[in-house]
């Protein structure tokens, strides 16, 4: 831990706390205190004509994931490396956990900051277990505690324990990446820095590792700074995204949603690409929009009532549903074919119902829901929530509802 006195604002005033317990981290997360802050940081490499990072200032709140994105040469990796002093800034101040990080020997500062890089950089001459245990070993844990921690971390990052006693060369790229994350987390550092951690693995493994990181973050609540050139990765992982331009200029620092909704300038807009709307949809879920009832009747409705609902909605089909139960749908042809003027008492429930193919759940991202809708003949999707072992029908969504999701 970087140790100065920690203060928390509470109802009884400012309270000093000195130990890094889990509860303490949670308080910090809630108080929103910046874990990392850069104040007017500039980096000029000797012999280089251009400035790598130019007057950069931003803060990373405790427990937050911040992505640094930008084209090559924008200084994002240099910025990351200045946080743990792998690169020393030419001028400016970097505060880590409230203390000027220059006040501590670099190697001690680094032991409290996890670091994951693209090339992973596992030590080839040490078993995976001894790789993961590197920082605990440096700070003097005993062998037994390190071994127990390695087992725990292997489970946490999804690495089979059998692999712990192999050498890194025997692991696949994805497994090495998991080992790299486990190593970074070994001494439970409050901060994790990740430099293009997933660029070297194939897209399928990458997507899974990203999902795993988000799931992991729900457990570990680290302050994470991740460097990536992939805007989709930034949008998917980060709470806030810092878009940087060549020469180390911060163009915009905002939540993914704000960024996509209102890019600060032409550069940010072009970096975000043409599919900004679709990318924003990927951030929202079906649960964020209000489903409509749509052309729908109860099983007890008469056939003529069903026809008039279809007329009202100008559709050739009608859903049969009651309360939270979706029974299926009927086509106009079926209803008209069954219509018998001599027997006005028959109901839609008596007819053979067909099941809906275009289903989404409240957790489906809107981008995916849109795909379901445009592929459905009915141009809509039914929203079904799996509740225990039964399905709850919540209503329907159409393109209108999806588009409306971007307005909120």
């Amino acid at each position: 831990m970087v140790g100065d006195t920690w203060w928390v604002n509470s109802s009884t005033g400012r309270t000093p706390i000195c130990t890094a317990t889990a509860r303490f981290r949670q308080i910090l997360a809630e108080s929103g205190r910046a874990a990392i802050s850069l104040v007017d940081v500039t980096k000029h490499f000797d012999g280089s004509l251009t400035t790598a990072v130019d007057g950069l200032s931003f803060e990373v709140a405790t427990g937050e994931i911040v992505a640094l994105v930008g084209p090559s040469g924008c200084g994002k990796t240099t910025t990351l490396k200045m946080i743990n002093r792998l690169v020393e800034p030419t001028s400016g101040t970097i505060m880590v956990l409230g203390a000027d990080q220059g006040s501590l020997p670099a190697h001690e500062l680094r032991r409290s900051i996890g670091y994951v890089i693209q090339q992973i950089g596992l030590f080839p001459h040490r078993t995976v277990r001894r790789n993961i245990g590197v920082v605990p070993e440096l700070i003097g844990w005993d062998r037994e505690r390190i071994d127990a921690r390695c087992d725990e971390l292997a489970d946490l990052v999804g690495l089979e324990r059998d692999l712990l006693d192999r050498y890194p060369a025997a692991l696949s790229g994805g497994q090495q990446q998991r080992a790299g994350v486990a190593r970074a987390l070994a001494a439970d550092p409050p901060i994790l820095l990740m430099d293009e951690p997933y660029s070297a693995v194939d897209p399928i493994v990458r997507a899974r590792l990203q999902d795993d990181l988000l799931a992991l973050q729900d457990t570990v609540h680290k302050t994470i700074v991740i460097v990536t050139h992939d805007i989709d990765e930034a949008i998917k992982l980060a709470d806030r995204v810092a878009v940087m331009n060549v020469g180390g200029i911060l163009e915009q620092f905002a939540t993914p949603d704000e960024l996509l909704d209102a890019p600060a300038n032409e550069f940010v807009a072009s970096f975000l690409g043409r599919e900004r709307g679709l990318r924003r949809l990927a951030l929202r879920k079906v649960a964020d929009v209000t489903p409509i009832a749509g052309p729908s009747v109860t099983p007890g409705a008469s056939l003529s009532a069903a026809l008039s609902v279809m007329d009202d909605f100008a559709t050739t089909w009608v859903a049969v549903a009651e309360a939270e139960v979706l029974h299926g749908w009927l086509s106009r042809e079926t209803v008209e074919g069954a219509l018998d003027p001599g027997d006005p008492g028959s109901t839609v429930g008596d007819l053979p119902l067909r099941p809906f193919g275009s289903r989404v759940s409240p957790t489906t991202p809107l981008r995916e829901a849109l795909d379901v809708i445009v592929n459905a003949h009915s141009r809509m999707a039914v929203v079904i929530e799996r509740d225990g072992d039964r399905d709850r029908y919540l209503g329907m969504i159409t393109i209108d509802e999806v588009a409306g999701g971007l307005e909120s």
Partner: protein
Amino acid sequence: MIADERRSLIWWAWVGDHLDDIWQRTVEHVQIALIAIVVGCLLSFVLSVIAVRFRWTFKPITRVGSILYTIPSLALFGLLIPFTGLGLLTAEIALVSYTIFILVSNTVAGLDAVPAAVKDAADAMGYTWWRRLLTVEFPLALPTVIAGLRIASVTVIGLVTVAALIGNGGYGALINDGLQRSFPTPIVIGSVLSVAFALLVDGLLALALWALTPWRRHA
């Protein structure tokens, strides 16, 4: 009869009579060689660390090392005798200077070949410079370091025979004796044992490398 046997390549009866003498020469040879190798290793390690830490020193160090390496051994003894006289010190100075070029070049090459990502990771995990060098870089450089050590050892063991010319014993003393008396047996015995010793050390170092680098076997 005896004259014929003296002239043959090897006269076993002489060997049997002179086992004590041969053993004595073996002890001398091993001592002279091992001192040179151990001192050469220590000195080269220090020089390699300096060369890696202060990059500008690498060229001057290897330049001097390579000049020493090219001086014929007899000439080097000759150059040293006015300062250090006849004897062990002169021999060791010469022998050690032959190891430096090979050992420093190989050690620095081995350290340079450690992947940058591994060094970065070590720094980022909070290794101090020394700890990184000794526990990460040096183990990974071992294959190259030991390859250099094998060449240096074999070279030194061969050159120890020349050191007999300035009165240091070893197998060279047997060879000199044979040459002066036109008596092949000690020449053959001295040469064969010297070669055998070189091969033994070479093999032991290969084995040591195998034992010290388990990760290269389980990839």
